[in-house]
């Protein structure tokens, strides 16, 4: 049962253009959504998050959009840089305190071409 889905396993974008990574979820109990970036041989690195009560959160070149009615979120990277090449995981959180846990999607491998 895949509660968090990233349907595009890979994405290639020219340097300087916009990268859009998409994610869908099924569990209505998720109340926080996160994006992580992962380089080979490293652990995931937290990038940006959004509460379910918001529809947009921005941090520098990274913006996350949430459409609750469609159970869809996306990460926009503008402008894309070669150093952004990595696997991006969408994740969703439910519960609070010690009962909080995060469920990850399968990841999208982003390649930014110089």
């Amino acid at each position, binding site marked *: 049962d895949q509660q968090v889905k990233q349907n595009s396993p890979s994405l290639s974008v020219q340097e300087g253009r916009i990268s859009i990574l998409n994610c869908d979820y099924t569990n209505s109990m998720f109340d*926080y959504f*996160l994006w*992580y970036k992962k380089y080979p*041989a*490293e*652990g*995931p*690195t*937290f990038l940006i*998050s959004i509460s379910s009560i918001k529809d947009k959160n921005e941090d520098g070149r990274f913006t996350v959009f949430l459409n609750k009615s469609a159970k869809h979120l996306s990460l926009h990277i503008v402008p894309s840089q070669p150093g952004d090449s990595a696997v991006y*995981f969408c994740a969703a*959180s439910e*519960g609070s*305190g*010690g*009962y*909080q*846990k*995060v*469920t*990850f*999607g*399968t*990841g999208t491998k982003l390649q930014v071409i110089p």
Partner: protein
Amino acid sequence: EPEVTQTPSHQVTQMGQEVILRCVPISNHLYFYWYRQILGQKVEFLVSFYNNEISEKSEIFDDQFSVERPDGSNFTLKIRSTKLEDSAMYFCASRGDTANYGYTFGSGTRLTVV
């Protein structure tokens, strides 16, 4: 910047042997997690730990798995009798009492069961 440290980076073990994967979370964090990623698959939740006890665990975390925080700094994952299918990257993560639920992950331990 504070980081989560995992040792060893790579562990090779024979099927049926016990392994202990070690993690040193960030010192003022309260919540601790183990995740794993089988090669080419998604990052999967194993267990969360808070206030010296397990708060949540997944179906993967069966009787062969256990966690401990023996001395207030280390957080260990023990697999009692390893199986071939336990081969994966195991990631430890910790979280403070933050609103964004962003975990800090370690670099992982690659477990290879032969």
